[in-house]
């Protein structure tokens, strides 16, 4: 047992923190979120140069190696800086999918780690809520070795910038069957593929992806035909663990900002931090941050360990997501509350951290959903 960071992991964290401190003051984040593309392509190139985009990708596939723990280290630090760059969508979820790529996508991972490829994963649908096998988008055989894909995918993060959009489809069976799913990698410009772009409440970009008879070949299949659920779950698990680390970074930052604010804000002739009722609240928030961080890294370690059994991994990931969802509400809502009117304003960074933190809960399934996964009570 060793639940401490290695020197390399600490160095990695410091390098992300350094970049955030030097180049990512809140005003930059605000401008980027409002910009045309919604993030900085220049910073993305810098991420590539620093090797961050190749994390989790084997060196022989053009990456820099490392695994879920390294990814979590980066995500936590990016969370603390509230970065809008699509690391989660492209480097975490996207790379996990592309690893299953067939011949047609053989250079994808190398291009991804060089910063030349943006990805999005279209897995949710209107009726699916958080169920990954609840897929009605259909891929029907078309000609010798092809398919035509028809359906609509909901709230696809990073879809506006994506060069490749991975889509979960049904090639057999009925909606909610675990069998019969197939994941395809589609070029964003493919005829019949349409993205309705929008901003999200937390300053990111997403879109509704409409697939109107989009043509795909066998070479576009990620993983095996009909066994796509494994590919989907692997990508979503990676996404959850990374999102938990991001949330831990956000929470810790919100807590720190709140402590600072209460030290400087005076009412009734005293710093607000001198009131014991508020001190206890800050302590409860602090505990929630620490517990969340433990759970985020526990899940990352389990995910990194090839020995972890499937059931154990599912439990670890679900538990972490429950903890993060609950603690995120507690820390976030109290941080706003303790800032008083200032916490409500768009001007203060704290409200932007809050929005991202709350919306992480419903990304890849909220606390309610994962609680049932753990308890085994999902119908």
């Amino acid at each position, binding site marked *: 047992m060793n639940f401490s960071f290695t020197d390399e992991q600490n160095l990695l964290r410091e390098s992300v923190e350094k970049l955030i401190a030097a180049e990512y003051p809140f005003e930059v984040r605000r401008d980027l979120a409002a910009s045309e593309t919604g993030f900085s392509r220049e910073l993305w190139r810098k991420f590539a140069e620093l090797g961050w985009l190749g994390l989790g990708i084997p060196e022989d596939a053009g990456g820099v190696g490392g695994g879920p723990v390294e990814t979590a280290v980066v995500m936590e630090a990016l969370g603390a800086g509230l970065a809008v760059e699509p690391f989660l969508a492209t480097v975490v979820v996207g790379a996990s999918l592309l690893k299953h790529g067939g011949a047609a996508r053989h250079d994808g991972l190398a291009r991804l780690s060089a910063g030349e490829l943006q990805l999005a994963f279209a897995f949710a649908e209107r009726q699916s809520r958080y169920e990954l096998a609840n897929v009605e988008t259909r891929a029907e055989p078309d000609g010798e070795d092809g398919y035509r894909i028809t359906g609509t995918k909901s709230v696809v993060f990073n879809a506006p910038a994506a060069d490749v959009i991975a889509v979960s489809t049904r090639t057999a069976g009925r909606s909610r069957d675990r069998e019969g799913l197939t994941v395809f990698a589609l070029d964003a410009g493919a005829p019949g593929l349409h993205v309705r772009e929008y901003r999200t409440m937390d300053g990111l970009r997403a879109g509704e992806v409409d697939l109107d008879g989009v043509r795909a070949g066998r070479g576009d299949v990620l993983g095996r035909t009909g066994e796509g659920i494994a590919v989907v779950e692997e990508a979503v698990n990676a996404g959850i663990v990374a999102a938990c680390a991001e949330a831990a970074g956000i929470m810790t930052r919100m807590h720190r900002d709140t402590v600072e604010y209460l030290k400087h804000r005076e*009412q009734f002739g005293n710093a607000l931090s001198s009131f014991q009722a508020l001190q206890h609240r800050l302590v409860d928030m602090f505990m929630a941050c620490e517990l969340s961080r433990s759970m985020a890294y526990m899940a990352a370690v389990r995910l990194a360990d090839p020995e972890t059994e499937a059931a154990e991994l599912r439990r670890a990931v679900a538990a972490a997501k429950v903890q993060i969802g609950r603690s995120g509400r507690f820390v976030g809502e109290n941080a706003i509350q303790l800032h008083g*009117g200032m916490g409500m304003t768009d001007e203060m960074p704290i409200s932007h951290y809050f929005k991202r933190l709350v919306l992480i809960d419903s990304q890849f399934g909220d606390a*309610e959903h994962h609680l049932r996964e753990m308890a085994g009570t*999902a119908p």
Partner: protein
Amino acid sequence: MDLVLNPEERAFQEEVRTFIRERLPDDVRERTWSGARMDKEGQVRWEKILNERGWMAPNWPVEHGGAGWTPLQCYLFEEEMEAACAPPPMPFGVSMVGPVIIAFGTDEQKRRFLPRILSSDDWWCQGYSEPGAGSDLASLKTRAVRDGDHYVVNGQKTWTTAAQHADWIFCLVRSSREAKRQEGISFLLIDMHSPGITVRPIRTMDGGEEINDTFFEDVRVPAENLIGEEGRGWTYAKFLLGHERTGIAGVSRSKAQIRRIREIAQSETSHGRPLAEDPRFRERLAEVEVELMALEYTILRIVSAMNAGTAPGPEASILKIKGTEIQQTLTDVLMQTVGYYAHPEHPPAEPGANVAPIGPEHAAGLSARYFNWRKASIYGGSNEIQRNIIAKMVLGL
């Protein structure tokens, strides 16, 4: 004890219900139901309809144009309004400054201001908070210096709700420097169209602009706009705070929210079935309903005591804390019903706007509302300050 309304009370309830059903404009109801932002024109239209019927100010005495109802009638009226998705009148005139003018104003002030509050021709806003004076309101610094038959006002108010729509603002100002801070404060009515007033909108995290900074630079205010005596403003403000609190629980509004959540849950799915049939979802909603019921019967106990002539005490703080906590929980549950559709910045759900919704139509604005409603535990005396009040005034600590 008896929890059943008597025949007169039931008849009263029925009369209110019928009136609202017949006269509330559809577009106004629709706006309230969907949680869209307040729009002044619709609000004024509805307030004028209420006023025509004599119901704009339920709690004012009849001689001043109020309905002169008992506390129980006022409560039943509020309930019916909220249940029918009728927006209550803007509080700043009718519920806040009106009662102060009635209790402490001159006859001339009553003649001048009350009718225009009732007719909704004057809109009011509340100028209490300042950047340095929030919870500790008595530390306010905006100064009013007497100059002949005027006061000259300088300073800054903040978080002023609806200042951009308001014709008048009631302000707490410092008119002298006394040893005891509360004693140098006066209650002044200021014309928002006066030279020297600047209003600057403050954007909130949900993207709305309902609050403002309000700046005063050498604003000349006729001395006749002073309420009561100079230096007694704190007393009047405290009187008003008592008025602010009973309505803030919003029990019926919360009940209407629960109905809306149920309706949306019919068309959302969970594990292949309507969300409304999901046991965990139903249990979660039932938990909130229990809390709401406990609150409702606590209010009824207070209203009963008021009906018997006992003024609401600091126990009213319970209503503020619990009521806003429940409202906030409901905004969260509501947001969660739409799953991923909490994420998009939805195009504004303006009636007649010709933009296709993103995802289900009912998802628009739900997360914005959750974010916006964090305000409810901050304003009107924050929930921490309410706890201090209970600790001090009720428990004697």
